[in-house]
């Protein structure tokens, strides 16, 4: 990416300007990390803006921290700060902002978005064992989510960094189709193997910017425990099936769940299947526009119902 450093300088400039003028409380951006993933940085002073970076290690979705702040209970005696929070987003992450605005979690007036144009970032799992540091984005290193990404320009950005990138491929959901093509027994064997590995660290849930229930159903104890703590296939299956349903029609495929999974479970394949189905059946797509109706919050008289008696 020849213009990465120019974009990096621009991000720093904008953050510096915003922080110097005091129009934002702080800026959430990327800083250099250990390994091949950038680190989230919370920049509070204009002088620290140079900590911010932009390179192919910026694979993570920072909107999670924005959502966390929006839902945070104020500490005792803390006065609410009405100033917005600045955040650096890639186009895919900007879809999360759209979705969070749509779900009334983020008030657009309380966020200032630095949107970067993007043509793909590296998958840290593909870089294990290589030298640490920013690698070039190539066919071997590009994150899977980027190969099917249709959105290269950020949505809802207050400042866009980078020149407009033309839209490329149409997503053919070939990864999902691969599983759909299997027989039911093969499909079960596939998911049985994958989900048996799950250690239920809940990393996929914690990293998901759209998993924001005050009390998650999987943690719930009273009045009824929905899922046992047992870490065995039946409970793991329940966890993943319910989680997929909770994200159906909302997931914007930022790929964070699959990235953080320590057991390499292909979680995106579950979410993308429902994304595909929601699109096919209802023509809905998450993260397009904050004006859209939520998938499950809307309905149509002519929705298909071929399996219903």
């Amino acid at each position, binding site marked *: 990416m020849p213009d990465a450093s120019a974009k990096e300088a621009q991000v720093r400039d904008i953050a510096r300007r915003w922080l110097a003028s005091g129009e934002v409380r702080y800026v959430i951006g990327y800083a250099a990390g250990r390994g091949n993933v950038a680190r989230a940085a919370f920049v509070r002073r204009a002088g620290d803006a140079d900590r911010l970076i932009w390179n192919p290690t910026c694979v993570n979705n920072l909107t999670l921290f924005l959502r966390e702040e929006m839902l945070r209970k104020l500490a005792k005696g803390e006065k609410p700060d009405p100033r917005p929070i600045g955040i650096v987003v890639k186009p895919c992450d900007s879809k999360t902002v759209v979705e969070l605005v749509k779900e009334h979690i983020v008030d657009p007036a309380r966020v200032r978005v630095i949107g970067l144009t993007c043509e793909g970032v590296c998958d840290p799992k593909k870089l294990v064992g290589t030298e640490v540091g920013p690698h070039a984005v190539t066919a071997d290193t590009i994150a899977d989510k980027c190969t099917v990404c249709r959105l290269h320009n950020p949505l809802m950005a207050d400042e866009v960094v980078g020149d407009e990138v033309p839209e490329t491929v149409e997503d053919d959901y070939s990864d999902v189709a691969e599983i759909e093509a299997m027989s039911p027994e093969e499909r079960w064997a596939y*998911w049985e193997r994958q989900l048996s590995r799950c250690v239920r660290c809940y990393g996929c849930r914690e990293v998901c910017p759209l998993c924001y229930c005050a009390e998650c159903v999987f943690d719930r104890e009273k009045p009824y425990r929905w899922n046992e703590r047992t870490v065995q296939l039946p409970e793991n299956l329940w966890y993943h099936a319910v989680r997929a349903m909770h994200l159906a029609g909302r997931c914007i495929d930022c790929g964070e769940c699959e990235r953080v999974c320590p057991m390499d479970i292909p979680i995106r394949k579950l979410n993308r299947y429902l994304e595909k189905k929601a699109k096919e059946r209802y023509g809905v797509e998450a993260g397009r526009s904050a004006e859209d109706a939520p998938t499950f919050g809307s309905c149509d008289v002519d929705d298909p119902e071929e399996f219903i008696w």
Partner: protein
Amino acid sequence: MAENDSWEPKIIGFLCNWCSYTGADLAGTSRLQYPHNIRVIKVMCSGRVNPQFILKAFQEGADGVLVSGCHPGDCHYIKGNYHARRKLTLLHDLMDYMGIDPGRFQVSWVSASEGHKFAEVVTRFTEQVKALGPQTKFTGGEA
């Protein structure tokens, strides 16, 4: 095998208060015969049925789950069954995709006057679940 021959599936039915539950009542008062495998849970609307209820029923040992509500357009709450339709159709898809016998989960529209249809749906669904055998994927039990 003798045990298998006498095996009867357990079916949980989530029936909406206004149509299907009354339909089931009508089936009863009309003395219609249908398999006794179904255990009915009354809900106010099929839209109340959260997909996780269905998965939980499987985890607690159900072999099949039936959700039944008013016909489209007849919902007591105007749109409840339309919402149910979206959610439950995607759940049905997901079960298919994960290879967890989507045939164990069925949705039907039964109005308060359709006692006959209710008996038919339960009969047909019980046969379908019987053919699939005991559900073990969510219980961890042996097939």
